[in-house]
């Protein structure tokens, strides 16, 4: 009994709190990148089920870039390119040729899983070379906030990029023509076409942007979070990102919040261990998915998807 009380008190201790917040943030970052990407393409009417494969492609190419060229930044660029290669299939097959987005999405996921694993095996065999620890950048002043400041505002630079990106997307969706075009491509592609904007081009750029962001999300996993590329390292995070994007209903700010929450549920295991509570890892692994199910049951009524989603656009066809 005393033991239980002691550990309950530990939950609110400083190391546990910081590990929960920082862990949630770090675990949520790849989700945030990927879900932000999915938000773009869902808005434009492309359901991207290949996200998992694109993340893995990005994780692999990003790792290669960082490993051979010794720079995390180069790694992230490579990661974005890797994700875009996956997205290119989506663009050509689904957007240009109008093939089934679900089938192609599943194919991209399988190809990403298989190909990265095969290439990794062919290259490194059963050894998994590690990258050095990522460099951190701290924000002046904010990192002086007591308790959480030093750890929360002292992150790898890519973390700040993510938040800037979310802000940019918020602005772009709200008050630029790009945002309007994307929305029209998902809501009523005929109207966009009638207005003289190419639906195909809009959706192509959206899908490519999604691939790039998913690639960066994957690269984050291999370069910063793990420092190593292992086959299937995304473990369903691509699917989680799709759910986050759907729950956020196309709103970047909601994506940030939801990703942070899921990040916390991903990182809660470490925090609980620090607090001296031992819970089965399977239960912990289950938490994010269970959270999503509960969220879907509660908010199910209000889930909203654009009517043009997953419907290929062919001019003059209804």
């Amino acid at each position: 009994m005393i033991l239980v009380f002691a550990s309950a008190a530990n939950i609110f201790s400083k190391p546990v709190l910081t590990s929960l917040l920082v862990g949630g943030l770090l675990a949520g970052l790849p989700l945030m990148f990927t879900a932000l990407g999915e938000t773009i393409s869902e808005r434009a009417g492309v359901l991207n089920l290949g996200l998992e494969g694109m993340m893995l492609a990005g994780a692999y190419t990003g790792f290669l870039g960082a490993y051979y060229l010794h720079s995390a930044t180069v790694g992230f660029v490579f990661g974005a390119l890797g994700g875009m290669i996956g997205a290119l299939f989506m663009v050509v097959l689904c957007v240009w040729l109008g093939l089934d987005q679900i089938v192609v999405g599943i194919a991209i996921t399988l190809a990403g899983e298989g190909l990265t694993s095969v290439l990794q095996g062919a290259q490194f065999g059963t050894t998994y070379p590690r990258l050095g620890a990522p460099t951190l950048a701290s924000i002046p002043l904010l990192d002086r906030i007591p308790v959480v400041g030093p750890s929360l505002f002292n992150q790898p630079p890519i973390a700040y990029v993510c938040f800037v990106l979310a802000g940019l997307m918020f602005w772009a969706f709200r008050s630029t023509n790009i945002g309007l075009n994307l929305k029209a491509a998902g809501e009523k592609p005929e109207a966009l076409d009638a207005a003289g904007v190419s639906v195909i081009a809009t959706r192509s750029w959206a899908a490519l942007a999604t691939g790039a962001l998913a690639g960066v999300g994957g690269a984050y996993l291999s370069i910063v979070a793990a420092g190593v590329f292992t086959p299937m390292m995304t473990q369903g995070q691509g699917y989680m990102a799709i759910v986050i994007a759907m729950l956020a209903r196309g709103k970047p700010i909601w994506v940030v919040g939801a990703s942070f929450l899921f990040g916390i549920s991903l990182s809660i295991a470490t925090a609980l261990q620090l607090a001296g509570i031992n819970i089965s890892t399977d239960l912990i692994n289950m938490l994010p998915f269970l959270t999503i199910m509960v969220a879907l049951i509660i908010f199910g009524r209000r889930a909203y998807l654009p009517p043009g989603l997953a419907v290929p656009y062919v001019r003059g066809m209804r």
Partner: protein
Amino acid sequence: MSDGVIPAHPTDVVENVPPPVGDNRQERLPRSRRAAALRDTLIRSVVPVILALVAGGVLLLILGTNPLKFYASVWQNGVQNGSWQDSAMLAAPLLLIAVGLILIFRANIWQLGYDGQYLLAAVLVTGLGPHITGLPSVVFWLVLFLLTALVGAIWTLVPALLKAYYETNEIITTLMMSFVGIDLANILVKGPFQDPTVNIPQTRTIPSNLMLPSIPGTRVDIGVIVAVIAPFLAYWLLTRTAFGLRLHVLGANPRAASHVGINVKRLIINSFLISGAFVGLSAFVDILGVWGYVRSNWNPAYGDTVIPFVFLARLNPLAVIPFIAFFAILSNGGDLAAANTNVPTDFLLVLVALILLFMTVIEYFGRQRDLGQSYLPPGLKQVFSRPIIPRRRGTREVNS
């Protein structure tokens, strides 16, 4: 006109027949057209497989493995020297999952939660089975048969209700339930179903006398027979019953379905339950036929690899049989071939993905030919020549 017979131009009848339900098509078409349709189907189904094998071979070459040697090794380890029996036993659960998926895909519902359904059913068989060994073997099997079907069905219930009442995207809900199911299965293996006599996390083993018996003269268990019956049952269900017709209408147009008086909500829930039941049964066949116990973190992920073949068979439960047989051989032989030639086993995933991609491309060309259109997609040329937003007031384009 007075006799009530509406004369119709013979060619009109042939030309204007709407795409018929199920496979009635072959009865209505003249012989030459039937042959042409069969040829088209063969081309659309077999060519992607061949192309994928060729492309996979190129990848093997790049990796420094002789593809001919690899494929020969697949044949040796998958078919020859009695190893076809192992392939057949692997095909059994795959076939049942394929049938479960076909039934619900026909309604245009994307039930992708097969992994969780399979594993939960598998774990419950090994968890409950060893406690009821006192029963006569036939009753034992019947109980577990019903149990697996029930478990598989129940695990689809939440996505089914969400889909039926809130139109929540079933891809997401079934995937999430699948992940939850996989973790729950692990918790059960490590917790209540843990075999107390061993240290590694695994369930008790079903006694060998209660495993499904083999077909005389082979190692193949009778579960394979159950698995082969299932596609025929599904075929009958889809083409000869009102349920099949309703499913087809729902898949073609949900709004039309509710307009003709189909209880769409009930139909959605029923199709989920039936699909889940078949997936659950795959665990019955697999565990009682081959494994006998379940280890923690074990997940054969049958469904992922079944999906392409379900599509290749055009959601026809009979046509899926040869495809599953092909894949079972490829998978069974490929695992050993990969080990022999130092290729990662995940190469098979690449092969499956390639089949899917080639399939969609072939499908596209076939569709274009039917419509009499050019092979080049419209708008391909000017796609990237246009800015993402129109230029207004002299502003230059802002690209992503």
